[in-house]
């Protein structure tokens, strides 16, 4: 059981490290948002499962933290993406003099 828990912890830490690496390597705000949010959420879930296998008496607190991360993280990332789009940041390889963006109320206002 300890070996399985340690493997879950290693998986979660590896996904977190790869998400942070994507935060460095990606060229754009939106790509960085994808890399930095999804894989880090998966890594946090795996770390919570690993700690829950180490300490089974903490399951209620760990469940609360997992539900909190799962519910708040997509909402936060969607809010950041919407704010970046409204504040006029073009996605990667989209020319700046093209047609306006789909939610492009922020352009020129």
């Amino acid at each position, binding site marked *: 059981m300890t070996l399985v828990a*340690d493997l879950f912890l*290693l998986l979660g*830490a590896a996904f977190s490290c790869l998400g*942070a690496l994507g935060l460095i390597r990606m060229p754009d705000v939106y790509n*960085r948002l994808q890399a930095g949010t999804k894989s880090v959420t998966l890594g946090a879930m795996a770390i919570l499962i690993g700690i829950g296998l180490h300490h089974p008496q903490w399951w209620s607190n*760990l469940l609360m933290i997992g539900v*909190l991360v799962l519910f708040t*993280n997509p909402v936060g990332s969607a809010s950041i993406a919407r*704010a970046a789009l409204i504040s006029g940041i073009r996605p990667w390889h989209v020319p700046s003099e093209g047609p306006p963006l789909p939610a492009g109320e922020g352009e020129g206002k």
Partner: protein
Amino acid sequence: MSVSLLQLIALCLLAVGLVLGTIRFILGPTTPDRIVAADTLSILITAGLVWLAHLLDSSIYLSIALVFGALSFVGTVALARAIEGNRS
């Protein structure tokens, strides 16, 4: 407090992730880059606090992780709303 070899490797990976996120937070070209980096760092720190509860074998750090996660979500949404209103 005993740390096995797998846990040591995983802790080093988590530290590397924190350092990479901090680099993006420092030299992000625009403000949304920094906010994305801060969001990622907050999730990493929440996972790290849960791990600290395991390392120190006391369950009070789980409550700290819960409150930190809630407050970081509120801060992320507030910062996103703030740059949304800053139309240029």
